[in-house]
C-alpha cells in the first residue's frame, strides 16, 4: 500500500504537470489572439477607435451614431465603435479596464472620476496631445486639470437650477419663486402645509450614488459664493460657509418640509416626485425638463436661480455636471483619439450634441439651438450666464468617497444622532487625509 501511494504521488504530480501545461498553453493561445486583435495598424491604415460612454442610451435613439458617422465622413480613415453602458456601472467598468490596461481608446468621464484615473495612469495627458495637434484650446469653456495637466474636457454641461412647481406655489399662496434662503424655507413650509403627500423640497441622500451631496446640499453653499475648500485646496468643512449650509439643510429637515425617504432617495426618485407634484421644489439638472414634460405634460413649472443667503448680492455659483471626455493612456491611437475629441469640441458638432442632450456646450463659441426646445432652456441659459459654473468636487481625488463620507455624517445629523459640531468635525477629519 505504501509503495502504491508513492507511485501514485508521482503520477499525481505528473497529472498536475499535464494540467499546468494545458492551462499555460490555453493562456498563451488566449494572449496570442488578444494581441493579434489589439495590435492594429498605428500607421496610415484605417483605424477603429473604441469609445466607451453612457451618453448614447441617454440621447434620442440613433442620434449619437449619426454624429459619429459625421465624424467618419470627415475622417475616412477613422471608424468609431461605440461601447455604451449604464451610467451606474460605467465607473466600475472603467476601473476594471484601467487595472488591466484595456481601457477603450476614448472614454466618457465624470469630473468626479478624473483625479483617480489620472493618478492610476489610466488616462492620457491631454495637454500633450493638444500641443502635438496644435490645438487652440482657447475656445474650450473649461478643462479639468490634475497637477496642471489637462485630463478631461467637458463636452456638455448640465446645470442644476431650482425647479419650482408654479401651481403648488400659487396654491400655497406664495407670490413669486423664492430667491433667498428665508423665502425658500417659508415657501417650503407653505407648500408642505397643503397636506396630502405634498412636501416642499426633496433631498436625495442615497449613499450608493452620493451625488446628492454635490447637487442638493453643496449647491446651497456655492449659490452664496461659498467654498468648501480653503485657498490651498484643503477641506474647510468647519468654516462658516459649510456650517451655515448644513444648519440650513437641518432647519429644512426639522421644519418637516423634506419629502420622506430622503436617506435612501436617488436622483431619479426626486425627479419622479417633482413630476407627479408630490414635491414643490427641487434642485435638478436641466436635462430633466424634457422628461418631466413627457411624464406629466400638465405640470406647470419654471426654473430659477438657487436661493442665496439673505442679503447676498454677489454672483451665484450654479452646480453643474458634465459629460467629459478623455483618452486612454494605453491607447495605441492617441492622435486619432484626439481627433475625435477635437471633433466633439468643434463649434458645429458641439452645438449639435448640446442641442440633443439639452445641455450647455463645452465650446464657448458653440451656439446650441434652443429655438425648437422649451423656453425654459433659454431662461436657464440666462441664469447660467449671470452666474458662474461651480462644482468643487470636479477634479478632487476620491470625489465620490468624499461625498459619501459627508453624506454619512449628514445622515447622522438629520436623524438626530449627533450635533452639528460633531458632524462638521468628523466630516473634516474624514476629508483631511485625502486632500
Amino acid at each position, binding site marked *: 500500500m505504501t509503495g502504491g*501511494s508513492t507511485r*501514485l504521488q508521482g503520477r*499525481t504530480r505528473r497529472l498536475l504537470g499535464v494540467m499546468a501545461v494545458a492551462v499555460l498553453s*490555453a*493562456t498563451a*493561445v*488566449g*494572449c*496570442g*489572439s*488578444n494581441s493579434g486583435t489589439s495590435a492594429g495598424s498605428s500607421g496610415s491604415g484605417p483605424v477603429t477607435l473604441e469609445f*466607451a460612454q*453612457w451618453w448614447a*442610451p*441617454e440621447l434620442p435613439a440613433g442620434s449619437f451614431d449619426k454624429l459619429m458617422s459625421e465624424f467618419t465622413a470627415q475622417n475616412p480613415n477613422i471608424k468609431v*465603435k461605440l*461601447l*455604451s*453602458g*449604464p*451610467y*451606474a*456601472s460605467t465607473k*466600475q*467598468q472603467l*476601473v*476594471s*479596464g484601467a*487595472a*488591466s490596461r*484595456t481601457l*477603450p481608446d476614448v472614454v466618457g468621464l465624470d469630473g468626479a472620476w478624473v483625479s483617480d484615473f489620472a493618478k492610476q495612469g489610466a488616462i492620457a495627458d491631454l495637454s500633450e496631445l493638444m500641443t502635438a495637434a496644435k490645438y487652440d484650446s482657447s475656445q474650450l469653456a473649461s478643462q479639468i486639470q490634475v497637477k496642471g495637466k489637462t485630463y478631461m474636457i467637458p463636452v456638455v454641461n448640465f446645470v442644476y437650477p431650482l425647479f419650482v412647481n408654479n401651481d403648488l406655489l400659487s396654491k400655497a399662496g406664495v407670490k413669486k419663486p423664492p430667491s433667498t434662503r428665508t423665502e425658500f424655507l417659508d415657501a417650503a413650509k407653505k407648500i408642505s402645509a397643503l397636506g*396630502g*403627500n405634498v412636501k416642499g423640497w426633496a433631498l436625495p441622500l442615497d449613499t450608493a450614488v452620493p451625488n446628492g451631496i454635490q447637487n442638493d446640499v453643496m449647491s446651497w453653499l456655492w449659490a452664496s459664493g461659498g467654498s468648501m475648500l480653503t485657498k490651498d485646496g484643503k477641506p474647510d468643512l468647519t468654516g462658516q460657509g459649510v456650517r451655515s449650509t448644513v444648519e440650513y439643510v437641518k432647519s429644512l429637515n426639522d421644519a418637516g418640509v423634506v419629502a420622506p425617504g430622503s436617506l435612501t432617495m436617488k*436622483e*431619479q426618485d426626486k*425627479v*419622479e*416626485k417633482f*413630476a*407627479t407634484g*408630490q414635491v414643490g421644489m427641487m434642485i435638478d*439638472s436641466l*436635462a*430633466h425638463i424634457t*422628461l418631466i414634460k*413627457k*411624464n*406629466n405634460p400638465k405640470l406647470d413649472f419654471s426654473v430659477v436661480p438657487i436661493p442665496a443667503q439673505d442679503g447676498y448680492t454677489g454672483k451665484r455659483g450654479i452646480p453643474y455636471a458634465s459629460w467629459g471626455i478623455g483618452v486612454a493612456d494605453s491607447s495605441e491611437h492617441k492622435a486619432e483619439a484626439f481627433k475625435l475629441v477635437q471633433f466633439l469640441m468643434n463649434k458645429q458638432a458641439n452645438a449639435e450634441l448640446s442641442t440633443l442632450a439639452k445641455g450647455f456646450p463645452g465650446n464657448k463659441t458653440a451656439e446650441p439651438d434652443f429655438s425648437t426646445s422649451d423656453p425654459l432652456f433659454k431662461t436657464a441659459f440666462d441664469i447660467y450666464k449671470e452666474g458662474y459654473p461651480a462644482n468643487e468636487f470636479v477634479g478632487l481625488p476620491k470625489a465620490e468617497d468624499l461625498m459619501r463620507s459627508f453624506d454619512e455624517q449628514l445622515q447622522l445629523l438629520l436623524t438626530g444622532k449627533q450635533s452639528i459640531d460633531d458632524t462638521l468635525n468628523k466630516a473634516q477629519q474624514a476629508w483631511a487625509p485625502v486632500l
Partner: protein
Amino acid sequence: MLTRQRRRLYAKIAVLAGLCVGAAFAGLPVVWMLSTSFKTNGEVFQVPPRLITDNFSFDAYAKILGDAAQLRFFINSYIVALSVTVLTLFVAILAAYGFSRYNFPMKRSINAVIVTVQAVPPITLVIPYFGLVVGLGLYNTYPGLILTHMVFTLPYAIIMMTAYFNTLPRELDESVKVDGASSWTALWRILVPISVPGLVAVGVYTFMISWNEYLFALTLTRTDDMRTVPIGIQLLMGQHSYEWNQMMAMSILGSIPVLLLFLLFQRRFIGGLTSGAVKA
C-alpha cells in the same frame, strides 16, 4: 364518519387559505410588476397608486420587441444560458461519476475545495478575474461568460449529481462492465439515461442561475452585441431617469422562457431533486 368528513373539509379550507396567503406574498409584487409595465412612465409614481391606469397600453412591450438591440440581449441570454446548462451538465456528470464510483487520494480535499468555491464572494473577485479573463483573450466573448458562469454553477451541480448517482445501485454499471464495456460506456449508456430526472433538476437550476446572473455578465462584456437580458434591463436605468415600464416589460418577457422551462419540467424537476437533493 360525518365528523371525519367535516374535519377533512375544514383542514382543506385551512390549507387553501394558507396557500392563498402565501400566494399573495409571492405573487403580488409580480402583479405590480405587470401593472407597471402597462403604465406610462408618468403614471408609475401616481398618487394614490392604481393597478390599472388611464393610459393602459402595451407600448413598452412593443418597444422592447420591436428593437433589434433589445432582442439581441435575449438571443445572447439564450446562447449563454443554454451553453452553460449543457456544458455544466456534461462536466458535472463526469465529476459526479468520479466522486460516486471511485475512491482516490485527496477525494475529500478535492470535494472540500469544490464546495468551498461556492463560498467565494463574487464581488471580491471582480478585479483579478477581469484581468485574468482579459489575459486569456476571453473578454467580451461568449466563452468567457460561459466558462465564468460554469465556475459558479458547477459546484452545486456536482454535489447534486454525485448524490443522485449515489442513489443508483452500483450493480447497474457493473453489469455492463462484465460484458467488457468501459466505465465511460457504463456512464453514458446506463447511468445517464436513467438519471434524466436528476439532470433536469440540475439543468433547470443551472439555467436559472445563468439567465439571471448580473455582476459578471456586466463586467466581462462591453459591447451591446454580447450583453445579456439583466444588463439590458439595467441599460434602461439612465443617469437621469428610468424607463420604468420598459424595464418591467423586459423582465416579464425575460421571465417567460424560465417559466416555460419550469412548466415543462416541473414534475421531473421536483422528482430529480427528490432523489438528489435529499441526500445532497
